[in-house]
């Protein structure tokens, strides 16, 4: 279930762990219930999100040809930045 706090939207994520310990998100469910497949992860880096409020590991993902930033926070939850 997703949860929204201001511009911060916690979402359900399907992810896989590779045998060498790399965590990679495969898909997510947006707050309206739509499932999105993640086509590609372009970049993994530590980053803060001033818009949503928080910091964690930022996955720059390609979803349907568009780039999104999916954050994995240290409370083991995933969040996205909502536009407003």
């Amino acid at each position, binding site marked *: 279930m997703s949860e929204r706090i*201001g511009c911060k939207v916690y979402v359900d994520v399907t992810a896989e762990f590779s045998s060498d310990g790399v965590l990679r998100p495969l898909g997510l469910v947006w707050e309206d219930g739509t499932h999105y497949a993640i086509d590609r992860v372009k970049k993994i*880096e*530590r*980053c*803060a999100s001033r818009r949503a*409020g928080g*910091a964690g590991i930022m996955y720059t993902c390609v979803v349907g040809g568009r780039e999104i930033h999916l954050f994995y926070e240290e409370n083991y939850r995933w969040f996205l930045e909502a536009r407003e």
Partner: protein
Amino acid sequence: MDRAILHSDMNCFYAAVEMLHHPEFAGRPLAVGGDPEARHGIVLTANYPAKKRGVKTGMVLWQARQICPELVIVAPRMDLYLRFSRLAHQIYAEYTDLQEPFGIDESWLDVSASASAVGDARHIAAEIRARVKKELGLTVSIGVSWNKIYAKFGSDYKKPDAITEITRENYRDIVWRAPVSDLLYVGRATAKKLRSLGLNTIGDVAVCEPRILTAHLGKIGLILRIFACGEDQTPVSAEGSASPIKSIGNSTTTPRDLVSTDDVRMVVCLLAESVAARLRENHFVGRNIGISVRDNELFSFGRQQQIEVPTNISDEIAEHAMRIFLRHYRWEKPIRSVGVRVADLVPDAYCYQTSLFLDERMREKQLKMDMAVDAMRRRFGHDAVLRGRLYCDRILAGLDAKADDHMVHPHSYFEKGVHVSEEG
């Protein structure tokens, strides 16, 4: 060759972490402070808009609200701040293993060895500043110099989000012209004494006759002169060589004044439980138990005692704390706040001499019981299991010691040993 030392200071640390997590407060004055409803409230940190309005650290919350009515006050979340402090240390660790924390939000880094590989000290400082900003969403100010004292001065010189380099060329213009009170360890009393000797700037102290300083201030006078001259040689201690935590303690201002030994016993029990739980969580046992007591006229005192066998058992800590309390308090006035602290920490795997007068089998059982309670509380919340004693007064028992101000005491600068020789 000169050392390359950085001092990194996270600006308005608690407030900055809160601002990051509350984007809705952007641009508004904010202070992190205790819960005013529960009667204990001072400003721990204020952000820049609040500081501009006159809100200062240590101010009582109602006072702060008076001078700045639109002030947003949020309760402290120590665990969150510790997490961000740890993340910053991880960034620092990529540049050097000589990292010495000074409190939760400041660190000295000796980058002499890495300077040639990664670029000069200023370059490293710039990189750290940019990374902390991007990765943690916080700003730091960094001082760069050849000794720890000037590096610290540099980080205080320009804030926030700035780098100040104190070199052999510019220190006379920057450090020496600053007032003595800007020097590390010159407090209000020392500053007053120095000014009465006509020493107004750091430069005045640096060029002062050593014997004048010793005559008026004793040995500390010489140390201050070494600091002022930039001749402090104290090394930056290696990461992990000392526990960043010196003691674990909890204190609380109670919802009503404590008027009897039973009242105190209840609060001490709560505090001891939370201190013991945190000791176990961090795998420490302690050999020194201390209490602090403040009465309703705000007179306070602290007492501590060394114990024979190091402990992290709730009942033992509570018992020692109560014994110290009973020995030292005469009940002339009701009590407003109580603290329990365990210091002289060693890892819990540490071997110790058992005592003839302690039943080790019983101790083992007590520890197991404590750990069972920890596990239950982790899964079902703090109230899942409580002591019967706490049902005597639900108001007092209602204070959740675990959520109160966790104290983390940094090691003092002087413990590392600042060496002074008499020739000055």
